[in-house]
């Protein structure tokens, strides 16, 4: 299933690896920050209405 | 406006730090280069225009944060904002004061430093011409950076990060004029581009700097 990448195999794979890692990190950090901000807001809103 | 310029020049003279700072830094950078790259004059001659331009640029950068800092601390900036002087005028005068205290001395001293780096003979006039045309842009762009970071505590480093990318076009064309001049090539195209950028910057950037200064004065 893995296409024959020839002698540039590692070049292509490393490029894909780095890019995908960067994308995943970016998405993960964004989601984590969103959850943290939402939780903190709910905590304060809870205190305000509670 | 002239009163503000005269006052700033007086302050620079009296404080003494004004003129010496930029020049001494430029001298140090130029002297350090041969220690870094070796003394052969052929190599030095080749990189002299670029190094001299980089030295001048960094010397300008160094003295930028003092443009507004003093007036910010003692409150004169607030008072100037409520004076009949338009902020665009204040910003332009500040840039001119910076150029007169830092930019101009660099241009005048640059042939001397050219000697240190064994700049080819025909390069001198082009070096000075490119600096005279380019340093005003460095001062005006620098004033914009200074206005952006005037209120911040450790604004100096941030200002360099903001201002250096803006210096790229001026540096490229300025150093190109100096390099072509040193090699005896035609310098008209880069010279025109350099002059164009400087003219455009002087004409437009003060409005952005004034806007930013007003925001920071809030």
């Amino acid at each position, binding site marked *: *299933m893995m*296409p*024959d*990448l*020839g*002698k*540039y*195999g590692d*070049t*292509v794979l*490393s*490029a*894909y690896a*780095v*890019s995908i890692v*960067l*994308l995943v990190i*970016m*998405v993960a950090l*964004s*989601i984590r*920050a*969103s959850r943290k*901000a*939402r939780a*903190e*807001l709910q905590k*304060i*809103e809870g205190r*305000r209405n509670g | 406006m002239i009163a503000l310029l005269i006052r700033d020049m007086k302050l620079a003279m009296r404080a003494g730090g004004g003129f010496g700072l930029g020049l001494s830094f430029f001298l140090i950078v130029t002297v350090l280069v041969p220690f870094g790259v070796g003394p052969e004059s052929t190599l030095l001659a080749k990189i002299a225009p670029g190094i001299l331009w980089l030295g001048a640029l960094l010397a300008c950068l160094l003295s930028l944060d003092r443009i507004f800092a003093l007036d910010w601390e003692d409150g004169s900036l607030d008072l100037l904002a409520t004076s009949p002087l338009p902020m665009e005028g204040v910003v332009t005068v500040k840039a001119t004061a910076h150029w007169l205290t830092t930019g101009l001395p660099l241009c005048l001293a640059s042939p001397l430093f050219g000697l240190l780096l064994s700049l080819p003979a025909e390069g001198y006039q082009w070096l000075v011409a490119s600096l005279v045309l380019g340093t005003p842009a460095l001062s005006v762009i620098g004033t*914009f950076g200074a206005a*952006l*970071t005037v*209120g*911040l505590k450790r*604004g100096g480093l*941030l200002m360099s*990060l*903001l201002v*250096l*990318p*803006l210096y*790229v*076009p001026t540096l*490229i*064309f300025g150093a*190109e004029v100096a390099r072509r001049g040193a090699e005896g090539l035609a310098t008209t*195209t*880069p010279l025109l*581009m350099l002059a164009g*950028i400087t003219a455009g910057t002087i004409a437009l*950037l003060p409005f*952005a700097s004034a*806007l*930013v200064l007003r*925001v*920071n004065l*809030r």
Partner: protein
Amino acid sequence: MGSIWEYANPVKFIRTSEIVLPWVSILATVTLIAGLVWGFFFTPDDYRQGSTVKIIYLHVPAALMAINVWFMMLVTSLVWLIRRHHVSALAAKAAAPVGIIMTLIALVTGAIWGQPMWGTWWAWDPRLTSFLILFLFYLGYIALWEAIDNPDTAADLTAVLCIVGSVFAVLSRYAVNFWNQGLHQGASLSLDKKENVADVFSTPLYVCIAGFVLLFIALVFLRTRTEIHKRRTKALLARERLG
């Protein structure tokens, strides 16, 4: 539906983002995976560049996004300065990190791809260099946001920086061109020229680009919502101190 300015209202924006976000995220993931898989597994090697041509499916979309994200930030900065809508300023703040990552990906994949082709990891080629300059602009923009605590002042200053930065970025682009000829290949997808990349390569490329755009949109929605939540928490805390 009311004018688009209505969506600049924070509460309304959050409500719409709650609906839109899940869909855009799914669509983005699907398109991105489809594009990359198609590009990686089902395209032939290039006769000259061998399999490295597969890197095009990351390099070109990322490079395109790096420029378009800055352009989006320019538009939102103008909207903030003229219409004073908070969400627009926060959208610019939210987009910047995505833009810098895209520029980083473009640079890294460009360098990795360049290594076998040009024999060096980094060549001072006009296009690569202008992406490096764009990277510095992003860095300065994000640093300025972090350096200022009053959100409104920060929004104003970063908006002006973005506008001034855009002018100088374009200037640098031409200055860099003038400064060095260039090893970079011609535009893979340029509107004026006929398709110079064979169709078998370009279709998955379009899919990848769509994937990146959708990913960007999803991330901006998500991150802008985060910024709004943070601003709301800050406002509530300030109120509690005042109250």
